[in-house]
């Protein structure tokens, strides 16, 4: 059975109204249209769609349950990937880059003539960088995927974006903000430690963002 453009539009509207996340929509929409090709030609389009939803998804109300399962799977997958990326900087061969980064950062901070103010702004950039990644993700969702619909991973990205702001702004706001003592000499180990943690956090988040669009061709 081959649906007309109008019938396709009706199905798209129905699924958009029923489902929240674009990943669930894409998967269920493809499933229904593929299954439609195997439906007998002597029944109406509406009956064919009802048959598919009833046989393959149990019930129209069950679509939301299916979507919940899809969402949980995608979020868990993203969390697993994020921690795998983080871990890769502390296991072979990534650990060598991290150690090199630690030594270079220590040298950079202890021998550079940066004022405490500039070092403060370097850290401020690390805290804000996840928000930049978040904005890039929003832009690419519209530009590459040509949609503004919600993703099952949105909330997770918002959390990852918010963590450095919450954790980073507290010391910035309360620890010697006025005279930047924390960024001054004798604190280079501390500065290096936080700098490397910030860089690794952002690199892992950037890889997670790239992963989402790696296999996402535009329609």
């Amino acid at each position, binding site marked *: 059975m081959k649906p007309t453009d109008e019938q396709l539009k009706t199905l798209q509207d129905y699924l958009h109204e029923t489902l929240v996340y674009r990943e669930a929509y*894409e*998967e*269920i*929409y*493809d*499933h229904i*249209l*593929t*299954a439609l090709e*195997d439906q007998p030609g002597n029944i109406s389009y509406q009956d064919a769609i009802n048959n598919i939803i009833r*046989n*393959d*998804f*149990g019930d129209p109300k*069950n*679509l939301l*349950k*299916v979507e*919940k*399962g*899809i969402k*949980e*799977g*995608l*979020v*868990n*997958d993203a969390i*697993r990937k994020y921690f795998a990326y983080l871990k890769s900087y502390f296991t072979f061969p990534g650990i060598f880059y991290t150690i090199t980064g630690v030594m270079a950062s220590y040298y950079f901070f202890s021998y550079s003539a940066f004022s405490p103010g500039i070092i403060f702004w370097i850290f401020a950039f690390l805290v804000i960088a996840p928000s930049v990644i978040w904005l890039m993700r929003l832009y690419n969702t519209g530009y590459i995927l040509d949609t503004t619909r919600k993703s099952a991973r949105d909330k997770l990205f918002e959390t990852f974006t918010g963590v450095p702001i919450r954790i980073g702004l507290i010391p910035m706001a309360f620890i010697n903000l006025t005279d930047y003592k924390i960024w001054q000499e004798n604190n280079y180990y501390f500065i290096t430690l936080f700098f490397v943690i910030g860089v690794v956090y952002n690199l892992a988040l950037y890889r997670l963002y790239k992963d989402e669009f790696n*296999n*996402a*061709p535009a*329609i």
Partner: protein
Amino acid sequence: MSTNPLLKGSLQTIILKLLEDNDEMYGYEITQKVKEVSDGEVMLTEGALYPALHKLEADGFLETFTQIVDNRVRKYYRLTERGGKEVTSKLTEARAFIDQLQTLLNLKPAAK
């Protein structure tokens, strides 16, 4: 899925085995393959398939990629290296379970 609860509990094993035999498959293809190999006796319904697929993906046993087919996104699943090892483990478990069941229900004499 089929109303048989034993089969419901084996859904992940079935999916992993199908992907081992077929390299890469999409959701509907999996439902059809299960129907085909079971002569229509087993049908994946009640929305059990997609949550199971995404659970396997979240556990790192499956990876996905998408292709555009007829102007829509199609998501394909394939085994990861870890998933390949998991198939062997799940099949061993399934065989052991079937053997135990056969023994317990006196369907065959206990192996000595």
